């Protein structure tokens, strides 16, 4: 995210969505749509930042590259979504990423869970990408042309992310005694944070036809997880759901540290580019 270059414009397809182009070609979000775009954009941004932490630390070189690539895709989604959110009040994607404080972020707690060991990252990836797959599948038919375009693009990439997480889940659960023990522990550790993803906040009632209603995404998510867990011989953990609160600006304790690391450079050198 450099400050000096013109930001990419998220526009709509000229052929299929010509009606959207009758006015200004650069779509502007209403404040309600912008709030929803922040939910999705912050989820992608925080997960991207976390995965970047694995570069040079993954169990093998190929995983440094894989997690780095997944992080890059997520950063792409975050840029489109934050850019769009920012059109509501004139803020840039960089303003939103670097100059908001913790209580202004809208990410869910699952994405704020620390990397932990590799199994814990894979359990987070499995649940996150299975959720995102259902989310973007549904959002493709949003009546908001920009959200639909972002979703159509992101879905194809998230399909690869989900596959990556599934393959690792199978390998770790079916590998050595130690890898299986860690995979079971990892699934148990992330499971309390799954429920928040599918909670319908009041905002959703104001976005009929625009947002993907979270509760409707659960069945698809459960079916995928059930298929993977059957193959991996894993059980759904019997744990109670966390309160969460990310959509209202209340965050997991690790979030402050994560933001400090992500934002410090931009705050020390505002407007810097490289």
């Amino acid at each position, binding site marked *: 995210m450099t400050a000096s270059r013109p930001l990419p414009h998220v526009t709509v397809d000229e052929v299929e969505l010509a009606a959207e182009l009758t006015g200004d070609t650069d779509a502007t979000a209403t404040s309600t749509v912008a709030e929803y775009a922040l939910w999705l954009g912050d989820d992608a941004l925080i997960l991207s930042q976390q995965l970047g932490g694995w570069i040079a630390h993954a169990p093998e070189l190929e995983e440094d590259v894989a997690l780095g690539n997944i992080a890059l895709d997520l950063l*792409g989604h975050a840029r489109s979504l934050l850019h769009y959110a920012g059109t509501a009040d004139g803020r840039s994607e960089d303003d939103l990423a670097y100059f908001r404080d913790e209580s202004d972020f809208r990410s869910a707690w699952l994405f704020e869970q620390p990397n932990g060991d590799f199994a814990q990252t894979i359990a987070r990836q499995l649940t996150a990408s299975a959720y995102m797959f259902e989310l973007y599948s549904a959002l493709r038919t949003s009546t908001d042309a920009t959200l639909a375009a972002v979703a159509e693009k992101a879905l194809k990439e998230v399909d690869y992310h989900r596959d990556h997480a*599934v393959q690792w889940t199978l390998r770790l659960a079916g590998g050595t005694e130690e890898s299986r023990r860690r995979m079971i522990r990892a699934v148990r550790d992330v499971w309390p944070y799954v429920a928040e993803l599918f909670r319908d906040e009041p905002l959703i009632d104001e976005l009929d036809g625009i947002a993907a209603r979270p509760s409707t995404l659960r069945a698809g998510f459960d079916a995928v997880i059930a298929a993977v867990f059957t193959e991996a011989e894993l059980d759904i953990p019997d744990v109670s759901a966390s309160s969460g609160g990310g959509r209202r600006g209340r965050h997991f304790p690790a979030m402050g540290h994560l933001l400090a690391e992500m934002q410090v450079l931009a705050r020390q050198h505002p407007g810097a580019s490289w």
Partner: protein
Amino acid sequence: MVTKTTTRRAHAWAIAATVTDPEIPVLTIEDLGVLRDVTIDHDTVIVTLTPTYSGCPALDAMRDDVTLALTAAGFDDVEVRTTLSPAWTTDWMTDAGKQKLREYGIAPPHARAALGQGPIRLRLAVKCPRCGSLDTREIARFGSTSCKALFECRACLEPFDHFKVL
């Protein structure tokens, strides 16, 4: 009817189509299917590009290169837009592009994009671009750039990149 505008548009398209991918210099942005549209609005040339992957940093370089190429060809007023929809797919890669990739040592996308297979999926064999063997295996799903995976050939023992189906 051929007008001055249509010939200028065709000329501008031809210039923009010479720009190559910074990571895979044998492929033009036209071969890749990244060049979506070129239009003329009065004196402005408007070029529309679409990213291969959402986070692909090559798009910034392509945007700059398109502007430079058109400016050098005498188009003073150039605007490059990016669009996300319809989403890029390897199905748009030209046959000429696939042949160039193969000759460059990268196995081209080998199947049609198909979303929504089950979560645990079967894969088609990828042909080694060096010896043509189908006895290859994936080393890593994610390679040196977002669009590639790393493979090795069990017949000739060479590692190679495969341009993933998207």
